[in-house]
């Protein structure tokens, strides 16, 4: 919870979880999630907390108005982490499905970032708060 969100009770709760893996496509998920959080379009949430079965984090994801999960590649670590925590209600984006080849080059291409950003935006619904 960042300083600009002293209370999330009335905030938009659209949530992004990224695999943030050790490849270009994994880091693209991370960068796009950071960008969209910074732009106020969704909030970037900690997938490691879900994987670590931190109860409050799992319930925070469950309580979000919308969840978009970003995986870099078909290994689908983020999706498997969600499912292991019993979280199944989410939209899903895989970066390699967008035509980005998986490499170990961390100099991320602007075009790949833009393509992923657009795909995530297309999944994000309108801002909504739960009552």
């Amino acid at each position: 919870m960042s300083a600009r969100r002293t209370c999330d009770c009335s905030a938009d709760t659209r949530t992004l979880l990224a695999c943030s893996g050790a490849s270009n496509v994994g880091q693209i998920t991370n960068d796009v999630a950071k960008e969209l959080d910074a732009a106020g379009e969704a909030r970037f949430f900690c997938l490691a907390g879900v994987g670590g079965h931190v109860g409050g984090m799992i319930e925070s994801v469950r309580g979000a108005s919308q969840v978009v999960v970003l995986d870099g590649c078909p290994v689908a670590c983020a999706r498997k982490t969600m499912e292991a925590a019993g979280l199944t209600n989410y939209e899903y984006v895989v970066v390699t499905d967008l035509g980005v080849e998986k490499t170990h080059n961390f100099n991320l291409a602007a075009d790949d970032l833009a393509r992923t950003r657009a795909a995530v935006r297309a999944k994000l619904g309108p801002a909504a708060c739960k009552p």
Partner: protein
Amino acid sequence: MKKIQVLGTGCPKCRKLAENAEAAAKAAGIEYSLEKVTSINDIMKFGVMLTPALAVDGVVKVCGKVPGVDEIRAILS
């Protein structure tokens, strides 16, 4: 005794959750303590990133919404 904790910095939704939790505990006829956790740092110790939230005996049960009295009563029982 059930330890009920309402996590939130004190906005109207947090206050409503505390009211509902108290009403639910009274309706259930249980012994309870009700604590309002308002410090961001203390809230984060629960792993909660979305408030208001409700914890019972240290376990987070609900995040990001205000459950009704009946729902909370079911959680408490």
